[in-house]
Structure formats: structure tokens, C-alpha cells
């Protein structure tokens, strides 16, 4: 015995009675109701006619045959991209040995990248050059970069030989600020001779900002 169904529910389901997709229990209930309901029977005829008209409308319409050339090209490109990505990952894994090591390397690379970014965005006002005098008291100085291979004793010997004293340094970039032992000595002469000394890479005279 099929379930009974309210008229409003039955008439709502008629489109799917027509297309044959109602579940058996629903079908029995709606069909039984429609047999005894003039309104639903008429609506069923109308919807059946609509279904037929829609089916007829495209009957005989020619559709182009499936052509997979475009989609195959897209899939080939997609597979090639995936392969390139996989190969890159494989190469990285080969090079780094294992996934943990790769993760460490990538993390280290990230930290380095961050450091570079932070270094690059350093405020301009804090950027100093070899000739920036702000932090020096008035007077004549030399800013010098030595060969990194020179040890402290060799640098001290050079300073002694050229009559220089260490004022500050080395900075993070290896720059020494040197003063003249003899205030009457010509800074230009000292600078010129120091430039030719072995182990000296760069010499730049600089003047303290309060000096005349």
C-alpha cells in the first residue's frame, strides 16, 4: 500500500514523475494521487508535453564529434609543468640528501633572504660611508680597509710604521678609522704612502665634522 501524499507535495514532484527519477515509494504515492486528482492529471499532461517538446527541439541536431586535440594539448602542458616541478624537487632532494635537510636548507635560505631584505631596507639616515664624519671629533682621519688576511700584529706594525693610531674599528664591514700620531704630519702624504703598502686595500681621508 503506497504512502498517501498531500496535493501540494504531489504537484511539486510531478516534473520528476515525468522524467522517471522519483524513488519507487515516492512514485507510487504521487502516481496514486495523480490518478485521483483532476488538477494533477492535467498538470501531468502539460509537463509531459513540455518534456516532449524539449526533447523534439534538439532531436536530429548535429553536434560536432568529440575533438580532443585542444584538451590533450592542455593536459600535455599541465603534465610538463608537473614534471618540471617534480624534477626540481628531486634535484633539490638529491642535492640536500633528505627532506629534513632540504627543509633546513630552505629555512636557512629564507633567513638569508630576510636578512638581505632587512639590510636593504635599512633607513637611509643610518647609512654611513667611509667618508661620513658625523661620529668623529674634529680633526683629520683616515678610513682604511686592510686585507682580511692580515692579523692584528701585522696591522699594528703597519700603523706604527706610518705614524697612525687606531681611533675606531674595525666596523662590521672591516673599516678602520685611524688618526695621525703627529698632528703636524701631512695627511695627504701619509694617505698616499699607505695606499701603496702591502696588505692595504683602501684608504680614504676623512675630516671630523667640527674641524674648520
Amino acid at each position: 500500500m503506497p504512502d498517501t501524499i498531500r496535493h501540494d507535495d504531489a504537484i511539486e514532484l510531478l516534473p520528476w514523475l515525468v522524467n522517471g527519477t522519483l524513488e519507487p515509494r515516492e512514485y507510487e504515492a504521487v502516481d496514486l494521487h495523480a490518478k485521483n486528482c483532476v488538477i494533477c492529471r492535467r498538470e501531468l499532461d502539460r509537463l509531459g508535453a513540455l518534456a516532449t517538446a524539449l526533447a523534439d527541439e534538439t532531436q536530429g541536431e548535429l553536434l560536432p564529434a568529440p575533438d580532443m586535440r585542444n584538451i590533450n594539448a592542455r593536459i600535455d602542458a599541465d603534465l610538463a609543468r608537473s614534471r618540471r616541478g617534480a624534477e626540481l624537487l628531486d634535484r633539490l632532494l638529491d642535492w640536500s640528501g633528505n627532506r629534513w635537510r632540504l627543509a633546513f636548507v630552505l629555512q636557512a635560505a629564507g633567513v638569508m633572504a630576510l636578512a638581505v631584505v632587512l639590510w636593504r631596507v635599512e633607513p637611509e639616515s643610518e647609512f654611513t660611508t667611509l667618508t661620513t664624519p658625523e661620529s668623529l671629533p674634529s680633526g683629520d682621519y683616515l678610513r682604511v680597509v686592510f686585507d682580511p688576511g692580515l692579523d692584528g700584529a701585522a696591522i699594528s706594525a703597519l700603523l706604527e710604521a706610518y705614524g697612525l693610531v687606531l681611533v675606531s674599528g674595525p666596523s662590521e664591514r672591516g673599516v678602520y678609522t685611524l688618526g695621525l700620531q703627529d698632528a703636524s704630519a701631512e695627511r695627504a702624504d701619509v694617505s698616499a704612502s699607505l695606499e701603496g703598502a702591502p696588505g692595504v686595500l683602501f684608504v680614504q681621508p676623512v675630516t671630523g665634522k667640527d674641524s674648520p
Partner: protein
Amino acid sequence: MRPDSSRKVDARATAGRERDLLARVRRRDREAFTELYRLYQPRLLAYLRRVLASFALADEIVDDVLFVVWKDAKKFRGDSAVSSWIFGIAYRKTMTAIRTESRYQAPLDRSMDTALLPATTSGDHDFVRAGLAELSADHRQVIELTYFCGFSYAEIAEIADCPVNTVKTRMFHARRRLRHVLPVLAGEKPEKGRDHA
């Protein structure tokens, strides 16, 4: 139409076959994809040509849909039929195209593609087309998915990603909009009075 038990068995077998194909596509099996493409390309094309105003766009969207099937086969969760999943992709792409450019909404101006039409066109067809032209995109989709594609209301709810009651409500409104068309199609004489659809 009475549910046919042999049809149900066939439908279950087809659904199982399609799930197998999709599982193979997930493993990047080109042969399985080709088979799935050949099964769905004609169905999708016929459907999209009905709901979009441009045959060229319909052709393009069919390939887009099936490319998504290739790319996203792993996203198929298996809680619906493969057909509902694939038609759901097509539905969303169609609605996006229509919302982006309303000129893409059906009715199809089939006069643009007369080479593809049967030699004769009955007056009924014009009448139906005029009626369907009155429908919003949502309502038109429910009509097409029901009558043209043969989906159940539960499947249409999955395709349109909406509750079952929304599907029924859209169908109700579509039938109301077609209330002048349906009696004529059924061969009734025009009558004055209330309409029950």
C-alpha cells in the same frame, strides 16, 4: 514515468564504471580520461548549448569543464554520482559566464547556427523557446537539468549545490512562468481562470 528497475540496475553499473574511470584519472591515466571525455563531451555539449546563448562559448566551456575533471579528479569525494559532480562543474561555469556577461544567457538564438538544425522547425519549438526565454538562469537550469538531462531533484540539488527544497521552489516558479506555454503545448484550448502550477 514509472521507475524502471532494469534502468536502475543499468544506472548503478554505469555509476560504478564512471567511478572506476575517475579513480584512474586521479592516477593520471590518459586512457581512462579519454573514455570519460567521450562519455561526457556530447552530454555536456548538448546541455551547455541549450543554456548558453553562444555555441562557441558552450564548446569552450565543455573543454574547460573536462580539464577541471582531469586536474581535480582527486577532489571528487565520492559522496555523489560522478555525473552530478561533472555537471556541477559545468553548472558553476555556466552560471559564472551568465553572471559575468548576461548576453550569454539562453535563449539560444539558433538562427545563428542553422546548419546544425534539423531541416524543419515546428511552431511548437518557437513557442517553447519563447517561453524558456522568460525564465531566469536559475529557473531555466532546473527545467533543462530535469527534462533535458533527466536528473532527479536530489541530483539537481547536488549539481546546483543547494537544498532540495530550493530545487523544488525554482521548479515551481519556472512552471508558473511557463503557465501560458504549457496548456498550449498540451493541446488545451485557452481558458480563463486560475492556474495551479
